[in-house]
């Protein structure tokens, strides 16, 4: 499921396995690792420090490069708000 056309992540509405193919209007996405129900995966290539977009809004930034079909979660995304490490980013 993709919530907004600006999004670079999709949502798994069922558990996805490595090798599953998600067909969308633009391209087919090959899932690279197991994605739990309700979790996010990259639908575009995301570079380190690039913003993660869901609901058409910024939900954080990538801490590593993320490939299409990879799990997107706390291991490769950080919040831009109220995180002690990121004091400089708070407006």
């Amino acid at each position, binding site marked *: 499921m993709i919530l907004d056309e600006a999004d670079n992540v999709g949502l798994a509405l069922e558990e996805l396995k490595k090798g599953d193919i998600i067909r969308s209007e633009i391209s087919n996405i090959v899932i690279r690792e197991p994605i739990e129900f*309700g979790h996010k995966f990259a639908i575009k290539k995301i570079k380190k420090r690039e913003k993660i977009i869901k609901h058409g809004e910024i939900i954080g930034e990538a801490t590593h490069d993320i490939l299409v079909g990879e799990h997107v979660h*706390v291991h490769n995304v950080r919040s831009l708000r*109220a995180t002690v490490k990121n004091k400089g980013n708070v407006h």
Partner: protein
Amino acid sequence: MKEDLSGYWNEDGRAGVRAHVVALPLSSFCNEAVERICDSIAGVIPLTHAFGRNEFGLNKQRLDSSLLKTPLNPNVHSVLVVGYEPKSTNEYLESFRRLSKKRIESVVLSEAGTLETIRQGARKVLELAVSCSERKREPINFGDLTFGLKCGGSDTTSGIASNPAVGQATDYIIDKGGTAIFSETTEIIGAEHILAKRAANKAVAKKIYAVAKSNEELAMSHGVDLVGTNPVPDNIKGGITTIEEKSLGAILKSGSAKVSDVLDYEQSPPARGLYFMDSPSAAQAVLTALVAAGCQVLLFSTGTGNPVGTSVSPVVKITANPMTVAKMSEHIDVDISAMLNGRMKLTEASRNIISATISIINGRVTKAEALKHREFAPLPAGL
């Protein structure tokens, strides 16, 4: 949809959807006496808590506010106060009587000891319970009600299904002349710009940015990284990565109405419409604050499930997560999980929420009421 609503008219012209007798300890020393009194007399609700001695500053303000305003909720018919010593008990009674004509009785524990307090308290509350049982339901309208909106145990399904459905139900309530309050300041961080666009005027938009900023600064002043505190581990397990993501889903429960104003902690809305209340975010603390602000009914959307209830107001628990329906059915009042595979549309889901809410207003017990989940949590200042 059948829309006849009924409730109990109080002398002050406000309507309750329940008529409860409550027993309130002013200090945690009095909890035992209050619990024994409530064991003895049917239908009396204990408002026990862990505080009431030596608090100061903002903690004392918040505690005093919760202790005074919870029994003022229109769902409360009458009150027994169990104080520890005469001075603070009398001050409480004076403040209460300045604000309400409700029946209030009191016992002071330091004057008599726990056993005698139980005997005197039980006798007094027995009379209140008999008088309360004579109350009759009469017609009321949405305009007589304030709804509290809360999401808890959030996961991905909250942001894409249950919060949007509650949001549409909120729009319906506001259209019908009702009032609604949403809250949890931490959970607007990252979504302030969207709420600010819905503010009734520039001053309200400014207040929205200001409360979010001060909440964020409070977190950072404690050296706290919000990840792990909010979102909590069950949010993260459910697929929520950051506070921004959680907030963008959370604000959807407030629907699309204009935000009339930002209320202080436990402040009652001055007029009808939709309000935001500045408050902490833990479920039991927010619900306590919403009840103290006068909410007679609470709509609670959950992803991973949450058992919480309140002392005096019914909590309508709504989920769109099929696994939660399977695991936690005794905590769910409205199952809208068919939204996820497209078998239930948003409008149908919100109609189901409204229809269940109307039944609950009219007396159907919620799962939390049936399970006696009566969390009452006046909390020290925090996130």
